């Protein structure tokens, strides 16, 4: 409701347009950079992946180690994304709806994973749960494996994906205000019902957007996961790690075939992201026009 529609005339007056060579120069430069640094590498991935034909490509994708890496990546995303979503909603709720001391510090802390190097994120868990870490001996006593095992990978991924949903929702919920929820409560709805019937429909596009970015990061994370994984083939290798290992072993087709999956994920993410952004602006425009 706060957005004011500004109508920019499509044909700008002559006096405000830059001369042709400036416009073409900038557009050309941008296209060149994108081609050189984005399209070309992406094409290389595909070319290399198919360099020995379709069967070699399919063969390396169906290799047991590759399949194990895909499975682990999907498992990691399946665990971390719901947890991050749940945390994101509760954090956004707390920050948008309640006033409390230290709120700004909390907002800053939520952003911490963005500013910490992922390697350090991985290292933290090694230092805590590793064989010589704080809880190492205790975990050893009970035969619980965290580092160099799946739980460590999930924890490291959680750490790096932690802010995605919360960051998306906080400004959205702050802008939206509390009145619709109060109205639902005054009409006799329970808190849970209010959330599912009133709050969630209003934040759904922003929420999906955050979930999408979170998912892309969870599946693509390399640094943090690399530290805690231990690179055990078929057990603790996620897809990005698998790309690195096969490349280091000169299995280029295998490496680029796995990379092509990640590239496909990126493209799908991009398309869905554009769709969600479009839906969000559409929703805001409708309520802004009224």
């Amino acid at each position, binding site marked *: 409701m706060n957005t004011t529609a500004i109508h920019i005339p499509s044909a700008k007056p002559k006096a405000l347009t830059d001369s042709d060579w400036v416009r073409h120069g900038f557009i050309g430069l941008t296209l060149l950079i994108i081609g050189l640094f984005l399209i070309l590498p992406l094409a290389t991935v595909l070319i290399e992946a198919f360099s020995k034909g379709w069967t070699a490509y399919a063969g390396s994708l169906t290799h047991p180690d590759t399949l194990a890496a895909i499975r682990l990546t999907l498992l990691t995303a399946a665990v971390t994304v719901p947890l991050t979503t749940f945390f994101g909603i509760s954090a956004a709720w707390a920050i948008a709806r309640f006033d409390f001391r230290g709120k700004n510090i909390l907002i800053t802390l939520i952003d911490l994973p963005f500013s910490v190097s992922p390697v350090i994120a991985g290292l933290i868990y090694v230092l805590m749960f590793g064989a010589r870490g704080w809880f190492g001996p205790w975990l050893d006593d009970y035969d619980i494996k965290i580092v160099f095992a799946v739980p460590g990978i999930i924890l490291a991924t959680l750490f790096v994906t932690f802010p995605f949903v919360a960051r998306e929702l906080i400004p959205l919920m702050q802008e939206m205000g509390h*009145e619709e929820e*109060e*109205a639902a409560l005054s*009409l*006799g709805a*329970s808190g849970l*019902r209010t959330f599912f019937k009133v709050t969630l429909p209003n934040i759904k596009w922003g929420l999906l957007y955050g979930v999408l970015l979170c998912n892309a990061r969870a599946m693509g994370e390399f640094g943090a996961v690399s530290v805690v994984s231990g690179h055990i083939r078929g057990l603790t290798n996620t897809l990005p790690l698998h790309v690195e290992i096969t490349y280091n072993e000169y299995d280029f087709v295998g490496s680029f075939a796995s990379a092509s999956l990640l590239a496909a994920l990126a493209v799908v993410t991009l398309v869905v992201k554009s769709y969600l952004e479009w839906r969000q602006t559409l929703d805001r425009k409708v*309520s802004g026009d*009224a």
Partner: protein
Amino acid sequence: MSINLKNISKHFGSFTALDNINLDIPEGELVALLGPSGCGKTTLLRIIAGLEQADQGQVFLKGEEVTDKSVKNRKIGFVFQHYALFRHMTVFENIAFGLRVKSHSERPSEAIIRRKVHDLLKLVQLDWLSDRFPDQLSGGQRQRIALARALAVEPSVLLLDEPFGALDASVRKDLRLWLRHLHHELNVTSIFVTHDQEEAMEVASQIVVLNQGRIEQKGSPSDIYDNPSNDFVSRFIGQTNVFHLEKDDCAWLQSAGIIIDEPKGIIAHVRPHNIQIEKPAASANSPVYLKDWQHLGGTIRLELDRGASNGSNTIIYAEMPNEKFRELALERGDRVALRIKHAHWFN
């Protein structure tokens, strides 16, 4: 008594929003909580609704204490200043919401919900909008839908927070009268918050004037207008001319030949329509002259300059019917004689 408030206080940090409020509102009244912004009127309304918790005091609705009850169990209808309609639901679903969220045993059947929503839509005269979304409606329509939604749960009290605050002047005027008539029809005890004294006078059967977290006066509109209990109420409830008799005003009043029946205090508040204007007798050299006038529809407002020598050229406002003004045939700059018919006295 439908609503009773006992010793309600509320602080925000060091700011006292409400200071020991006691208020009883009888069944079926349409009450205005009137006061300047920041006087605590919205906070009080939200405390009655349960959307805000008082630091101290008790709230009773229909004799039952609800102080610690959550808003959803208070059986109140609340109408928000900015409507707060559910933007992703149609008008129909908005109104049906309160019925649909009832527990399984209390929830009416779909057919009854349908009939009830359409009855409410007819009541607010917007039956043809049931399939629209809130953002396709005008402000006035949205507010009427918000009211229908609040009424759907058959609340024991209806609470409205600045219900006309976000509307255009002309729509506001229509809706005021409409609300008053609707209240006659439904007779549900209602409280609305406003900072507009004209709106309070026009709509409410009882007015509660609040200032700085305290109740200044409570009474019918005419009661409050005719017998303001203090200086604040008198100034707030309508235009008034203020004369301080202990300062040089007293001497000035005498020299101006202005007759005040008999002083009963130090400060006199005189409403514009209680000042009678006459053409001065030839001998009287009244210091007051007509500076300007404005048409206010049926009446004329005159700006009278006191022409005081001490530089305090305060303006006195007077009002009179159009015909009377025409009879007097005054021009700008003409000397006039004043007679104060009625004044409110404060110390």
